[in-house]
């Protein structure tokens, strides 16, 4: 049991301390230790983006981030209010079908928003390049993103 470490992370405004194996990823920490299952597990190797969360305001793939290396507050989809303009835009534009990739897209876009400015379509496409969606064909996701953040 020597490889168990105490990890203290601020998640959605609340500092949590848990004893976890040193190999615990941030995604496992969120899902297994905290029960925050909104962040999804799609590939476990950083390919799909379903696990995207914000660490210190920057979008990060939680499945390839070790819990012990996290510095700064973490935000997950559970910390995003239902009336957040990005969430509302996804709803309005029917940008979710199965919904499995949606939390990652939303967190990614919140990261874009917190970066400031009003990105154009190409910037949005670039930003969302790390998130795979297999249902929507991306059109409505881009519509929602433009609606919530873009210049239109």
């Amino acid at each position: 049991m020597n490889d168990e470490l105490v990890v203290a992370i601020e998640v959605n405004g609340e500092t949590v301390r848990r004893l976890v194996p040193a190999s615990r990823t941030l995604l496992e920490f969120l899902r297994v230790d905290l029960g925050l299952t909104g962040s999804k597990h799609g590939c476990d190797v950083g390919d799909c983006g379903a696990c995207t969360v914000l660490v210190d305001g920057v979008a990060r793939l939680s499945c390839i981030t070790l819990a012990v290396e996290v510095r700064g507050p973490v935000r997950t989809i559970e910390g995003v209010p239902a009336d957040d303009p990005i969430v509302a835009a996804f709803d309005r534009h029917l940008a979710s079908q199965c919904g499995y990739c949606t939390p990652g897209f939303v967190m990614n876009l919140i990261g874009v928003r917190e970066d400031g400015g009003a990105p154009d379509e190409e910037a949005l496409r670039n930003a969302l390049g790390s998130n795979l969606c297999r249902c929507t064909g991306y059109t409505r996701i881009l519509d929602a993103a433009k609606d919530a953040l873009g210049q239109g």
Partner: protein
Amino acid sequence: MRARIVLNVNGEEREVLAPSHWTLLEVLRYELGLTGTKQGCDKGDCGACTVIVDGEPVLACCTLAATSEGKKIRTVEGLADADGPSLVQRAFDVCGALQCGFCQPGMICSATALLEKNPKPSRDEIKVALSGNLCRCTGYTKIFEAVEKAADGSIGRHSPAVFGEAPEGFNVLGARGRKLDSIRKATGESRYADDLVLPRMLHGRILRSPHAHARIKGIDASKALALPGVFAVITGRDLPVTFGIIPWTPDEHALALEKVRYIGDGVAAVAAIDEDTADRALRSIEVDYEVLPAVFEPEDAMAPGAPLVHDTDWKGRPRTDNLCKDVELAFGDVDAAFAAAAATVEGKWTYSGSTHAAIEPHCALASWSPDGQLTLWSATQVSHYLHRELAKVLDVPQAKIRVIQPVVGGGFGGKSEPFDLEFCAALLAKRTGRPVKILYTRDEVFYAHRGRHPMKFDFRIAADKDGTITGVENDIAIDGGAFHSFGLVTTYYAGQLLCGPIRFGSYRYKSKRVYTNKPCCGPKRGHGSVQPRFPLETGIDEIAHKLGIDPIEIRRRNAIKNGETTINGMLIGSCGVLACLDAVEKASGWKERYANLPPNVGLGVATSMYISGTAYPIYPNDMPQSGVIIRADRSGKLTVTCGTNDIGQGCDGMLAYVVSEETGVLVDDIVVISGDTDLCPVDLGAYSSRITLMAGLAAQEAGRAMRDRVVAAVASKWGVSGDRVVVLPGEYVDAEDDARRMPVIDALILAESAAGTPLVSAGGFRTRKLGGDYRGGTIGASPAYSASAHVAEVHVDPETGVVKVLRMWAAHDCGKAINPVMVEGQIEGGVYMGVSEALMEDMGYRTPSPSEKQKPEVMGLHVGPNLLDYRIMTSKDVPEIASFIVEEPDPVGPYGAKEAGEGPLHAAIPAVANAIWRATGVRMREMPFTPERVLAGIANLGGGV
């Protein structure tokens, strides 16, 4: 401060980071998710948290986790192996030793530890070993049997749902079987409300009034809100809508608005990151009270100028007194009966208040979805009524609320109304946007109460020389506590339900329920009718003695017959009280023994009757009181949905038995979903002992509709008429060709194919017009009435006054026993609870007394709101209980079935009182029958006997 703790649990090394002050129970439940071990009292009184540590049973709630390092800990989850549940777990399962199942993980751990050290224990050794584990359902009898069977190897580790033979003419009804969910309970798999955990869940706590009566001048929660980890505080102003279980008398608020009315009244609620933080927040809320004079006894409350518990009624009209409800009814010429009587008895009787003390404390968990849908899990026995009241108080459409009743750890009437924690959890969850759970402490359970009303009786009975009861007069003062609750019904029940199984020639009663500044009374098993049985059945005994008639014989002479209407207009379709009396007379050896008892030993008899549900729902409507929907799938399985609340009494199993009987699908292949307002058709819930009759009839109708569709399809396939197709367990058979058979799965598929629509059926039940033709005449009217007769054998120590109930013989007419194991369990549990009330249970409060000086600030304080000071019988106190099932089929009930849940309690109390008289010559007229009271009675005899 969190500490690393390494525990060896169920053979696995588990390392956790937990607050260093946490108990083993907290670490097992909250850190390791081993929720099979239960929290019942949190102070070592109840034993529900018992685990095995290095071979010894240990109370996990009184053991620090840190001190358990290096020891081998076994919990209920660790007793099973790859071959399934352990022998002890299976023995509890097949013996019917689990009802609600909440105490059994601890009980099973204690039993396992016993058998490992002592493989062949005597019954006394079993009683001692289990005496630290309180069970409130079973009466312990089947628990003792289970431990003995596990020890003698007479059962195996595997068992089908139904293991007995059904009587002639039935597929399954009447066969002995397991409780549908008991093996899940025995292995710790069942999830009760407090076992549910949601991500981001906050913990709520409720601030309670330290004053019995005070005006709230102000509440300052700013310091609480400033604490880290505190998310919201609400007060009465946030939930201003009044409610009450009876729609005509909504006199409650979720949290006190202007006044607090008893010590324990809720004032504010907080949601915080954990319970410790929530407790800190409660302590920092400042409430400015103006303390008011309080009243504690009905007579004081009704005195002119008494302080008013409620200044206005729920419509804002000023009140002038504390009268909550009064009823006055007369049937026949009572005065003439007394004038002509050959013998009369009259006097004052006092029935003390008692509470349910279910081992599971109340618990509710609320969660809102982003689209405004509230889901509330609650340990309730009335999910439908809770659904309605939530909508009203929260001002949310009912369609946006889902109430789910998880497995409930006992109710006995104590969870049959909405409670503050349900409203508070819901609103706190809405305010915080996070799930919120509130679990009562054991103290809070006592103050939430809604238990048996204290009643005082001026009671008179008149009889002619043959012992015929010609007149009864009953003047009842009922102490209601702070709110109305079911009070309207209680006030009637105390008079109305007394008119059977003993026939009255005439009857007059006055019944008054009065508000006092104490926790609110309500329905406890045998609502309103247990108390007046005490004066009636002890009074009849006195009459018998005066006239020189045997106590059993006098009851026979007055027994109501099948199809008779009582003096107050209740139609008793069936009444098996004579067969009940025969059974207990024979089993107790009454005829040989009653006249020749050894010194200080007494036998006593009593009878009773109870309703199988009330004729009308709490809110008048024409919809069914119970609905059942059955759905087949292509696996041969049936899913039965019904909004009933299985609180341990086993109604899920009753539904499965009935549907199995009708359709031929084996009980093992029937799934019952109940207590979920989204998934189930409405049933009104677990109160007034209504489910077997009402949901049973709905299930029978739905089962028959399903069977008719399947039979039609099979008949068509075989080219025969439908009446040739016979339903047997697991198959359909041609009545004229025994070789032509079809497995039930094939028959279901055939029926679904024939119709081209899903194979679904529905059934419902509602009562026809019942009751007497007078105001209040429908209250107490029921489609069917059970009957009971008990004989008690007691020993009274004349030096100490200690009463030991040695044996109870209890016969109960349930019409038809759907599953006899469950019916016996209800009888044994009812007898246990009755004897426990008779001997020791007492809801005592500190009240002004002329003989002692008390501080005004503790007036109305419960004398011991815990399971140590509030005494209930343990495995060592419980008498030997012999239960006898009497089946006098009822014309209305399903297959003749009537209630068995509440009726078997009533007669226990007067039977014990009558036995005490036979042993000592003392007529007990005040409860409980404590050594002090018995000794005082013996002293008063003055050597006269």
